[in-house]
């Protein structure tokens, strides 16, 4: 999930009796699957939680361009390079759709970006891991975009109209990302023994971080209940994680690669794969800023923003000059 542990600002979920008449009417509309639109009345916590969630999601798309950008100049062929650039451009586009959706809730784009740069708002933990080999680009498309799709498909039905519409557009484009990644993995897995080892190494390193993308186990997830009542989260973390494992393991089997989990086995009784424990200490540590690339990612983003400042200012000056000339 691109938005992890979004704080709803509430300690417990209100039942109908504890709600004001306005809140009751609001909840009734959500329960009836009527979309909430920008000008509609909404509880302040709903608005603030959504800003946080959409913003985290947007930042993840933008920061997510960095690990992939690392391989643009070293893509193995011109075709791969063109595909990778198209994918990275999509991620930038996804970030922009989401920033626009967040802005309909009354925040400014510059404030959102300032929040990211100051570390006040997070982006997905997954983008704090390095892309060490070309196989990592395959693994990211296959696993990271695969996990993102798992989370984003249900979000097309989320209660906030502009967010849901952005998700529809994103989901249409995301499937290309996953397939191009899997295709890279197929080529490597069917290549020389060294290429296959590279693919296995990438799977070994990205598997657990991909499972962490869905966020902490439901039992430790304090804000899920409120978000689910508001329908800004539609399936629980554990439910999404299980679906992802069930879908991905057969894909790894097809590649002839081994999922790095000795406890992974099919449970016929449950109709699902059982899998081993996840190292949540690592997850919380990465969220706190101590992942392998946290500092580097933010430094790169801030530098891009500051280096581009003169261009933004010049464009405004040019537009103002032209407008003044037209008025005269």
């Amino acid at each position, binding site marked *: 999930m691109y938005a992890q542990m979004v704080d709803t600002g509430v300690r417990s979920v209100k039942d109908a009796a504890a709600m004001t008449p306005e809140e009751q009417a609001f909840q009734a509309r959500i329960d009836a699957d009527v979309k909430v639109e920008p000008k509609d009345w909404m509880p302040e916590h709903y608005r603030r939680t959504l800003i946080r969630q959409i913003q985290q999601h947007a930042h993840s798309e933008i920061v997510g361009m960095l690990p992939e950008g690392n391989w643009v100049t070293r893509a193995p062929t011109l075709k791969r390079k063109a595909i990778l650039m198209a994918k990275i451009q999509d991620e930038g586009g996804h970030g922009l759709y989401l920033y626009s959706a967040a802005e309909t809730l009354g925040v400014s784009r510059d404030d959102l970006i300032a929040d990211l740069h100051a570390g006040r708002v997070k982006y997905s933990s997954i983008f704090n891991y390095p892309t060490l080999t070309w196989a990592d680009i395959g693994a990211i498309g296959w696993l990271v975009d695969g996990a993102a799709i798992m989370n984003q498909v249900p979000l097309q039905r989320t209660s906030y109209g502009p967010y849901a519409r952005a998700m529809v557009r994103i989901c249409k484009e995301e499937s290309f990302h996953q397939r191009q990644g899997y295709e890279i993995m197929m080529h490597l897995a069917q290549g020389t023994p060294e290429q296959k080892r590279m693919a296995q190494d990438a799977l070994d390193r990205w598997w657990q971080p991909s499972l962490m993308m869905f966020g902490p186990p439901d039992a430790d997830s304090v804000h899920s209940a409120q978000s689910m009542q508001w329908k800004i989260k539609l399936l629980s973390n554990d439910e999404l994680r299980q679906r992802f494992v069930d879908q991905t393991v057969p894909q790894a089997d097809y590649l002839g690669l081994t999922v790095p989990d000795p406890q992974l086995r099919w449970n016929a009784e449950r109709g699902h794969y059982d899998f081993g424990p996840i190292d949540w200490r690592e997850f919380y540590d990465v969220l706190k800023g101590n992942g392998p690339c946290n500092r580097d990612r933010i430094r790169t983003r801030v530098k891009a923003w500051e280096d581009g*400042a003169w261009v933004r200012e010049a464009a405004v000056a040019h*537009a103002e000059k032209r407008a003044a000339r037209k008025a005269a």
Partner: protein
Amino acid sequence: MSKEWPLWEVFIRSQHGLAHKHAGSLHAPDAAMAIRNARDVYTRRNEGVSIWVVRSADIVASSPGDREALFEPAQSKVYRHPTFFPMPDEVKHI
């Protein structure tokens, strides 16, 4: 602190002769840049053959509070739909 670029709403007409449809919004310093950015942000996969952009600040919208006053009157006028008038089976092409 520099000035934030204004927000624009983007409308795209797809290939099949349909009307321009709202696609989303973006920031740009002026109209020409808004069109260029809209090309990159909203038509990466041949989604359109024509783009309109308009400053978001220039859009006037109805307010949610007026929903009933504006739209409720149409609800009782079912005779505006052809299905209100049942036609005998023998009568063709109508």
